[in-house]
C-alpha cells in the first residue's frame, strides 16, 4: 500500500534533472537549516533530506524563526526571498514526512507534515504566492490517497480547507476522501479508519461543479456516488460524459453505468455498457472482469473464460493502465502534476 506513495514521492526525489546552479547567496545570513533548504530548491533532494536528518531540532527552529522574521520584513525584496525559502522548506519537510510514511513512522510523518503546514499557514496569512498555498494541500491529499491513508487525509483536509480556502480541486479531493472511505469500508472488507459518507462526497462534488462547471472528474464522481446511493440522477450525470471527453472518463462512466444496469437485473444493457468500456480501453482490466463475471453468471462460460484470457494474457500492458485503479485512489493520479507545479515555484 505504501509502495504506491513511494512511486509518486520517488518521482519527486529522483525525477528532477539536477541542475548545478549555484544558489545566489544574496539572501542574507544563511543558517545550516537554510543551506539545506537551498540544496532542496536546487534539486539536490536526496542530499538535502540526508542533511536535514543530521540537523539538531534547535538549529531547525532557530532557522525557522529567522525565516519568519525576514518574512515580516518591511523590505519587499527580503520578504519575498524569505517566502521563496519557506516554500522550499515546505517541500523539504513534506518530502521528509512522506519518507517517514514509507517507513510506517507515523509520529515522524505527522511531525514533519505539521511543520510544513505551519509554514503554509504563515504564507497563507500573508497571501504569498497563493498558487503555492492552494496547490500544496492538493499534493498532500493526492499522496495520502495514493497510500490509502484516509484518517490522515480527512484530518489534513479539514485543516487545509481552513488555511487555503475552497477550490474546485480541493473540493474534489474532499469528496474523494469520503468516497474512498465508503468504498473501502463497504466493499473491500477492510477498515480504512473512516466510514466515508456518500452524501458528503456528493455535496463536495456538487460544490466543485459550481466553482468549475466543466470539471469532468467532479461530474464523473458525482454520477458515481449518486448511483452508489441508488439516486436515479446518477445515470443522467454519467450520461453527460460522452465522446468529447477523454477515453478514461468515458470508460469509467460506461463501467459505472454497466454496474447500475447489472444491479437492476438488466443484463443485456449492462453487457452493452461493459463492452463499450472494453472497446474504449482494451488494455484496462476492470471492464473485462465485469463483463466476464456477467457472462459467467448467465451461463456463458466460454465467453467468460475468453474475456479473462483476453485481459489476463495481454503482454506489455502496464500494471496501472486501468482507470479504475486510479479512480479507486481518489486524486492520487493528480499527484505528479501538482508536484511539478510546486517544483517550479520553489526553484531558485
Amino acid at each position, binding site marked *: 500500500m505504501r509502495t504506491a506513495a513511494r512511486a509518486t514521492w520517488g518521482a519527486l526525489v529522483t525525477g528532477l534533472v539536477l541542475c548545478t546552479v549555484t544558489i545566489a547567496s544574496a539572501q542574507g545570513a544563511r543558517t545550516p537549516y537554510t543551506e539545506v533548504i537551498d540544496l532542496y530548491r536546487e534539486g539536490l533532494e536526496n542530499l538535502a533530506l540526508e542533511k536535514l536528518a543530521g540537523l539538531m531540532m534547535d538549529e531547525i527552529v532557530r532557522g525557522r524563526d529567522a525565516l519568519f522574521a525576514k518574512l515580516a520584513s518591511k523590505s519587499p525584496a527580503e520578504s519575498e526571498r524569505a517566502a521563496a525559502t519557506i516554500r522550499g522548506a515546505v517541500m523539504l519537510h513534506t518530502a521528509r514526512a512522506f519518507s517517514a510514511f514509507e517507513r510506517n513512522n507515523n509520529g515522524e510523518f505527522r511531525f514533519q507534515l505539521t511543520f510544513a503546514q505551519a509554514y503554509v499557514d504563515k504564507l497563507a496569512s500573508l497571501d504569498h504566492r497563493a498558487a503555492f498555498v492552494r496547490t500544496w494541500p492538493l499534493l498532500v491529499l493526492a499522496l495520502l490517497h495514493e497510500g490509502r491513508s484516509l484518517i490522515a487525509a480527512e484530518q489534513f483536509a479539514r485543516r487545509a480547507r481552513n488555511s487555503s480556502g475552497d477550490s474546485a480541486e480541493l473540493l474534489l479531493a474532499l469528496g474523494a476522501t469520503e468516497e474512498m472511505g465508503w468504498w473501502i469500508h463497504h466493499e473491500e472488507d477492510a477498515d480504512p479508519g473512516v466510514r466515508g459518507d456518500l452524501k458528503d462526497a456528493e455535496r463536495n462534488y456538487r460544490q466543485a461543479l459550481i466553482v468549475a462547471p466543466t470539471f469532468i472528474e467532479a461530474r464523473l464522481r458525482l454520477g458515481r456516488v449518486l448511483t452508489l446511493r441508488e439516486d436515479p440522477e446518477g445515470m443522467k450525470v454519467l450520461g453527460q460524459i460522452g465522446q468529447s471527453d477523454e477515453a478514461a472518463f468515458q470508460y469509467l462512466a460506461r463501467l459505472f453505468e454497466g454496474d447500475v444496469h447489472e444491479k437492476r437485473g438488466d443484463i443485456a444493457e449492462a453487457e452493452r455498457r461493459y463492452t463499450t468500456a472494453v472497446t474504449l480501453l482494451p488494455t484496462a*482490466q476492470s471492464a473485462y472482469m465485469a463483463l*466476464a463475471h456477467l457472462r459467467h453468471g448467465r451461463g456463458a*462460460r*466460454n465467453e467468460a*473464460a475468453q474475456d479473462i*484470457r483476453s485481459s489476463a494474457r495481454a503482454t506489455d500492458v502496464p500494471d496501472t493502465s*486501468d482507470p479504475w485503479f486510479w479512480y479507486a485512489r481518489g486524486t492520487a493520479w493528480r499527484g505528479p502534476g501538482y508536484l511539478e507545479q510546486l517544483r517550479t515555484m520553489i526553484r531558485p
Partner: protein
Amino acid sequence: MTRLHNAWVVAIVLVSATLTVTAQRFRSGTIGVRVDVLVTQGQELVRGLNAGDFELRDEGVLQKVSEIEVEQIPLNLILAFDTSGSVAGERMHSLVQAGESLLDRLRPDDRVALLSFATRVRLLAPLTPSRQQIHGAFATLAAQGATSLRDAAFAALALRETDPGRTLVLIFSDGTDTASWLRAPAVIDAAKRTDSVVYAVALAEYRPVLNISGGRIIQHSTTTVQEAGKFLEHLTEETGGRVMFANSNKDLRATFTQTLAEFRDRYVLSYTPTGVSPTGWHRLDVKLKKKSGKVTARRGYFAE
C-alpha cells in the same frame, strides 16, 4: 486523466500460450452432480470411507450416492499467486519453491495453470500438462504493486474447463485486496456456479501491533489472514475448501504440499438428483451416517 494510461511502473512481459477452454456447467440432470467431500477428525483426515458411509441431501431430499475413485480423475490445479509488493524478497523465493514442490507431486494426466495477481491479474500459463511451461512461468514472477485478490479468485474460477477433471484452485495471498473491480459477493456467487474447490494459503506470522485506545497503548498481534479479511474464508467455505496457514515463508512449501495431499484424500461423491427442481440453487447437506468426523463440502450448487 491522460496519465491514467501512462506507465508508472515497468510492464511485465508475460509468457503466453494458446489455450482452448470450453465452458464448464455444473448441471443436474443426466450427467449428475459431483460433490468433493473432506472428512476430518480433529486435525486428522479420515480415510477408508465409502459411499455407503455418507448421507447426502439435495434441498433436503435424500439422494442415492455413489463414490468415484479419486485416483481415476485427473486434476486441474489452478494456482493464483499474490505477487504484490509485500511478497518481494524471501517470500517470493519461498513461494516459487512451494509452487515447484507441487509440480513434483502431480501425476502425468494432471494439468496446471498459473495466474499471478498484483495490481493486475496475469495469466502466466494456461492449463497445461507441460511442467516445463509452468517452471518457465514461475521464473517470470516478480513482486510489485497492489493486490487484486477478488478479481484473481474470479479469474481462476472462470478458467475452469468442462473436462471431467477435478479442479483445485489454490490461492496464495498475504494481504488485503486493494485493486479489484469485483466485489466479494460477486465472486462468491461465481464460486457457487462452479464445482472447483478453493483452498487458500495464508501466512499466520504474528507481529505486534500498537493501538492507542482511550489514552492507553494496547499491544496485540495480528496475522496476515486477518488483513485479507473474511473474503478467503467465505470463498473457501462456499466451495468446500479451507484456509491453510503457513507459519512463516519457509513453511509455505510444506503447507502447499499438505494442501495437495489433502485434496487427493477427499472423497468424490456423485448422484443423479431426484425429487428436486432441475434449475436454481440447490442446498447440499452431507453427513456421515454412523461414523464420527467433520464433513466439509460445498454448500450447494446452481443447476442450470
